[in-house]
């Protein structure tokens, strides 16, 4: 692996970590909140709560993936 590959690998591991779904959930939640802000839709309170809800969904999706993996392993 070249040093460029190692460089990106290091930052990927440092920032994204073990589960990309959780990081992606944060990205999607904030991007969604950002769109609402740019379009001027919803109050501050609504945008903050919706964004928080979307972040939680990302975490739950990440945890659910692990749960399904474990259940599949138990069945096999």
């Amino acid at each position, binding site marked *: 692996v070249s040093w460029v590959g190692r460089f990106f690998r290091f930052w990927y591991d440092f920032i994204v970590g073990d*589960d990309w779904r*959780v990081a992606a959930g*944060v990205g999607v939640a904030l991007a969604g909140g950002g769109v609402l*802000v740019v379009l001027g839709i919803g109050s501050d309170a609504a945008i903050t709560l919706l964004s928080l809800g979307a972040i939680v969904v990302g975490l739950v999706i990440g945890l659910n993936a692990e*749960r399904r993996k474990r259940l599949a392993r138990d069945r096999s």
Partner: protein
Amino acid sequence: VVEGTDAGSVGLVTAVFIAALVEFVEAFTIVLAIGITRGWRSAIAGVIAACATLPLVTVVVGAALLRVPESMFQLVIGTLLLIFGLQWLRKAILRSAGLKALHDEDAAFREEQEAARLAGHETRFGLDWFAFVVSFKAMFLEGLEVVFIVLTFGLSADAVGLAAGAAVIAAVIVLLAGLLLHKPMSRVPENTLKFGVGILISTFGSLWAIEGLGLLRAGSESLDWPGGDLALPVLLVFWITLSLGLVAWLKNTVAAATVGEREGVA
């Protein structure tokens, strides 16, 4: 948001102290395994090289962070902190629910020791290169995480000194305990600490990242959470409740599946 508030200062010091404690225990475990197996000279040289590099990174990153508007700072740092915190929390929840093995510092120590024993001997600059590189990487990576947490928490709350002090105390405690015990600190209840840190970092991360979305509107003024200053303690309680609920959900579903399979087999 946390400026001048007692809850903010207590949260800041607690989060930085516990996070630094966990990171230093991990670094110490690796350096100890390398030092015992390959010799202390190269292992300590790796630690010194990492400790010399970290301040340079801190100055560069810190200077860059000071130059950005508040909402951009909240958005960028809050996002990184949030991802960081959720990863800690995710692992802690999985461990608490029994879906992931508890991190065992004794096992980590044995694995590092075995890897160090099997690695070949290559000498560069008069040092055992394997021992130097592994110790450097361990100290640099764990130290970088601590620097990141100190800077983000410290700059956001305008209390870098307080945050740095908490990290230094954690380092001294780990070093003293390690020297006295001469063994990896497996007695530190790592998952409990990680659970706490994950919740604290996720709390601050979600607060700042979402506030920082205000960067995208005219005037770049941060978004306001409902409840104003009360948002911080409310978010903290929210993340605690959610995490405990998720642990219970995972425990229940896995236990139910196990029982169902047993009944199916019977």
